[in-house]
């Protein structure tokens, strides 16, 4: 069963990508977003080779130097080169977001599918739990969890995941409820197929598009939340270069007008989050036929 689903999904996504550009604005949104994300991820992977200085080495230059020929992005208060920190600072963010998306997919999707398909008491119980988490200020809950679990990438990812699973649950549930009523699902039931098959071959393939959309938005949110958590002191330990930490550290330097310490890392966070949001926006327009005229 596993291989069949993978094959059917792959066979759909590959041709989809190829036919993107003639899909007008939506296609461009996706392509532009994907390029943005691609560049940043690639930059991060090869950063050890291209970064002019060792990102965590301190006093490589005079502290708080404005951008100049030697340090194109200037230096921060510890004399670290901002450019190399920017090049390699995305690692934490990406790890956290990827991990949290995976946790959400592994937990949220099967839960959403089975609970909404089964219906009855189980569904109502899960709904109640999910709605109460969903109604909760995401960041605040993440803070509470992160504060309890302590620092570290996995903890951050977990706290973001817990906050984000309800949105998967809600999206999947609304999709499943509408698809469950469709005649082709009823026809499958009428033909006597077991509910497991109906769920995996009839309902899941039609829900996948919206899961992908939620995943991209989840990516963007995870990045922003991770930055937020770091900003309020729940981030990762100091020695690993991280945009979130640069921003937090930079805030103290604001009165002195050292804008470059926070500008560049902040910009990178925006670009990364923007990339994912663009993909999400493009996909939702593509898959929402009503908007296509």
């Amino acid at each position, binding site marked *: 069963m596993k291989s069949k689903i993978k094959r059917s999904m792959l066979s759909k996504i590959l041709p989809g990508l190829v036919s993107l550009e003639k899909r007008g604005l939506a296609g461009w949104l996706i392509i532009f977003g994907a390029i943005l994300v691609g560049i940043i991820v690639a930059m991060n992977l090869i950063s050890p080779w291209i970064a002019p200085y060792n990102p965590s080495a301190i006093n490589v230059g005079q502290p708080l130097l404005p951008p100049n020929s030697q340090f194109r992005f200037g230096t921060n208060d510890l004399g670290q080169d901002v450019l190399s920190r920017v090049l390699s600072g995305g690692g934490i963010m990406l790890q956290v977001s990827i991990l949290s998306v995976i946790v959400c997919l592994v937990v949220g999707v099967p839960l959403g599918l089975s609970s909404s398909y089964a219906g009855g008491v189980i569904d109502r119980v899960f709904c109640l739990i999910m709605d109460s988490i969903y109604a909760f200020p995401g960041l605040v809950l993440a803070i509470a969890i992160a504060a309890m679990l302590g620092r570290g990438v996995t903890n951050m990812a977990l706290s973001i995941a817990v906050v984000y699973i309800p949105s998967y649950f809600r999206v999947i549930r609304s999709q499943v409820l509408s698809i469950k009523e469709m*005649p082709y699902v*009823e*026809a*499958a039931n*009428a*033909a*006597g197929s077991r509910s497991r098959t109906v769920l995996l*071959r009839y309902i899941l393939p*039609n829900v996948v598009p919206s899961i992908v959309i939620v995943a991209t938005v989840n990516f963007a949110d995870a990045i922003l939340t991770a930055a937020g958590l770091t900003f309020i002191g729940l981030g990762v330990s100091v020695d690993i270069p991280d945009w979130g930490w640069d921003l937090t550290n930079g805030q103290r330097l604001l009165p002195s007008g050292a804008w470059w310490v926070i500008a560049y890392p902040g910009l990178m966070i925006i670009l990364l989050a923007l990339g994912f949001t663009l993909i999400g926006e493009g996909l939702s327009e593509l898959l929402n036929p009503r908007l296509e005229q």
Partner: protein
Amino acid sequence: MLPIQRREKTVSQNDILKVEDLKKYFPVEKSFLEKMLTRSRSYVKAVDNVSFSVRKGEVFTLAGESGCGKTTTGRLIVRLIPPTSGKIFFENVEITALKGEALRVLKRRIQIIFQDPYASLNPRMKIGDAVGHPLEIHGLARNEEKRKRVLQILEHVGLTPSEKFVDLYPHQLSGGQRQRAAMARSLVLQPEFIVADEPVSMIDVSLRTAIIDLMLNLRKEFGLTYLFITHDLAIAKYISDRIAIMYLGKIVELGDKQTIFSNPMHPYTQALLSAIPVPNPERKRKTAELIGDVPSAINIPPGCRFRTRCEYAEEACKEKEPELIPVSPDHYVACDLAEK
């Protein structure tokens, strides 16, 4: 030809399907306050005590306006939804409470075709897989054998060349072609009984007849029996052997096609027939005067449920709910004043 053993097609008089006092009540969704304040539960009486039987090889039509319970009856028979009460017999075996394996076997012999060609096929599945999937479910055929059977059945429903259609997705087919694919899917298990829920109402007029003729040919070829559900009496006249007119969850008149159209007894049937547009400019005719609108199925008027709209309504109609009584052989009417 299909290598299945040819079922000798005898138009035996024994009934393939029998329905006794079938009822299906849907609880009305109560608003927040109502849930708190009132204890009473009101119901939509979609199907209210319906009984009829279908003879083997026949096209039995359930006709009526929207909301009269015809579609719900169809879904009850195919066991998509459980009945509130009443019994259903298939080849004299009660299937109302059938469970597990026995139910799955039954599902091989009763199939359903839906109204909306655009939604009755899984958009993410090739036509070949969709039509072949029932075979997989019942483990009747695997890969090569399955593909052969699928190609054959596609030819039967007129989707030729079937090699081309097998690998297409639903959105690459027209409405008529999709309905044919849905029929192929219901036929691949060689069922004996098909519930066709408004199969042609969403298809262009010019193509409608092709689908109807296809259904009639398949009936001859595979000895099928149809329960045909429609709101369009003109099509009903063309395709059916016997017709049951339904109103607000009950059968008000039942008989073979000729008698229903030549000598309609129930005032509602008369009104229905007079309202059907006839493609002939010369013929100016009077439409029966019906008062008001169909009452809601939640609070059905006591006694005869049609009396609020019936010209001939009398005091007597208020007390007793008229039974479906035979007026002549094979012609039943649910109206005490029918003889007048």
